């Protein structure tokens, strides 16, 4: 075949595809997302999911960064909602709740999706993550490892595990409750030391608290503290101990010292919600979409740099507990 005819065929194929794509989305789907956290862990994951949807479905995408001025939020929401031109508007960040509820009430035809929480407004869609379930597995892993003690390189016989939270707020307590339940279920003798940094923005404090926990016999510390948690991970490298990452894959922050990462897959959540809209089945206002272990919305990722140090029997125990949670045999406590 000549190169010309090959090109012609390729062209015809491409235009057929384009036609098909056009027919499928007669009306272009427009998606907006508003948050102050697009540059941070969980927010990055949201952006990833939306960019993937943009690539796969050819949607129109608008990202609005809220910045840090509370005075601006309401106008920003109004500007997004004013023409009703967006099919879905993703919202992330608790400081936006007041502006969100006000705008959602004023523009009932604009569908807002609140990510990572449930409010009492009936015309908002909720994407909620079962962080208690993911943390349950993190607790099970940490406690099982701590129980083995000095049989494993880098661990002592303190028989304790640690937790560094950001602020002492309900959502962080939800992580902690799951972590504690997981530890109890896997190794009831292991002690849990939990502390709160009081801030999400202070890595130095995270580091300091983690060193203190290591001093008290914990060798594995779970961070649920945003940027403060970066300090937790770095402390684990400095002290040659272990830590557990949160929200996104944090294994690379302190390679060899982050044992696992509890993933809240915001990218999967936003992608599937956008897909529903593209498929003509937009989510109902007021519906709560829960992303849990069963649906793969939360997951415990064992870090590849460490996975060989985790005994097969511990892995099996964590897997068994996961199966029990998925099947409903174990109900993980939750804090609202």
């Amino acid at each position: 075949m000549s190169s010309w005819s090959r090109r012609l065929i390729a062209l015809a194929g491409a235009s057929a595809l384009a036609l098909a794509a056009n027919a499928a989305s007669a009306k272009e789907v427009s998606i907006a997302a508003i948050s102050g956290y697009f540059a941070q862990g969980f927010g990055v994951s949201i952006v990833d999911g939306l960019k993937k949807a943009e690539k796969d479905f050819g949607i129109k995408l608008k990202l609005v960064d809220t910045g840090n001025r509370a005075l601006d939020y309401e106008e920003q929401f109004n500007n997004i909602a004013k023409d009703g031109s967006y099919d879905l508007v993703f919202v992330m960040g608790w400081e936006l709740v007041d502006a969100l509820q006000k705008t959602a009430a004023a523009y009932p035809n604009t569908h807002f999706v609140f990510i990572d929480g449930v409010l009492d407004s009936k015309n908002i869609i909720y994407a909620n993550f079962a962080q208690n379930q993911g943390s349950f597995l993190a607790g099970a892993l940490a406690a099982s490892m701590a129980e083995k003690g000095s049989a494993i390189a880098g661990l002592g016989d303190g028989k304790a595990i640690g937790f560094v939270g950001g602020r002492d707020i309900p959502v962080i307590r939800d992580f902690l409750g799951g972590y504690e339940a997981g530890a109890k279920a896997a190794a009831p003798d292991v002690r849990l030391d939990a502390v709160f940094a009081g801030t999400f923005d202070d890595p130095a404090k995270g580091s300091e608290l983690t060193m203190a926990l290591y001093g008290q016999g914990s060798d594995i510390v779970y961070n649920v503290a945003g940027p403060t948690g970066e300090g937790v991970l770095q402390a684990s490298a400095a002290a040659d101990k272990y830590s557990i990452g949160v929200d996104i894959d944090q294994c690379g922050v302190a390679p060899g010292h982050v044992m696992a990462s509890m993933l809240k897959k915001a990218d999967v959540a936003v992608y599937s919600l956008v897909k529903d809209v593209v498929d003509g089945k937009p989510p109902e206002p007021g519906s709560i979409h829960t992303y849990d272990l069963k649906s793969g919305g939360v997951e415990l990722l064992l870090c590849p740099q460490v996975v060989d140090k985790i005994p097969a029997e511990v892995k099996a125990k964590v897997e068994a507990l996961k199966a029990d949670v998925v099947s409903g045999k174990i109900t993980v406590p939750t804090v609202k």
Partner: protein
Amino acid sequence: MMSDRVAGLMGQLIAVAIALAIGAVIILAVNESPLRVLVTLIDGAFGNPERIAGTLLQMTPILICGIAACISLRGGLFNIGIEGQLFIGGFAATWVGFSFALPPLVHVLFGLAFAALAGMLWIAVPAFFRARFNTNEVVSTILANYVAILLTSYLTINVFKRPGGQPDTPAILESAYLPQIFSFSRLNWGLFIGVALAIGAYLFFTRTARGYAVTEMGANPKFAEYGGIDIKRQTFVLLLVSGAVGGLAGGIESLGVHHRFMEGFAPGFGFDGVIAALLANGSPIGTIVTALFFGALRNGSLLLEVDTTASREIITVIQALIILAVSAQILVRRRASDSTAGERRWKF
């Protein structure tokens, strides 16, 4: 021959024009049309009654912080701690708002008075050291900003946090609400307070002997002292008043707009106010115009980011360019006309 005032105005306009021109080049560089950006900015700032109200809402804290800056600048002093006074004042008014049950009008007045008092206390130490020991107030007031922001944040999170996930204080009682002007906007009586303050400051500086004494001190402290003005006392009092107005700006934000105090309460307005005052050459009436300009830029930029591909931050860039252009021309003017530059730092 052009009068000083006209020359000054021309200088400021040229500074703004240069800043906007550089801004246009930056907009071109990010592949957006400067004309479209301009049209969207104007639409976002003045496109309908809601947006005009939004612009005035953004303008209010800039104006009041600007008046606080004008007051110190007139006397040749530079209170750059308005940001901190705003935070402290905002917190103080909120505390009054949720801690006491008072009759409506009394509650508001008490809250605002407390905000002003708090702002005054916050500048008292830098003001004392400036008056007594000639310590540079630029450094001491700017340092006090950090303390104010962290202290209010600490009090909010660790002492007064409302139940639930938010780093917020409880809401103030409705009796402490500063009334809204329109039902469709959070714009409130704070705007009128700001304009009244501007007119008041203008009258004080131009029509009273005491105001004249302050202006004289700003123009030439040595000469003012020779003329019998108690420089130390006047410096102290002037900075206290400037701080009180800064605190009041915070009180108006909490009682008029947010109805509570939260972490990251109103970041940057103190500095925006200083810029507005500098751009207005330290004139309170001029600050009304420059604050409106910055308010419109801010509010317009909120539509800009939604309706165009340009980032809202382009406004921050333009503002920074204006500061550069204005400070450059102040330096040039001073060098050209001022043989006693060593004696004073700010000339208005």
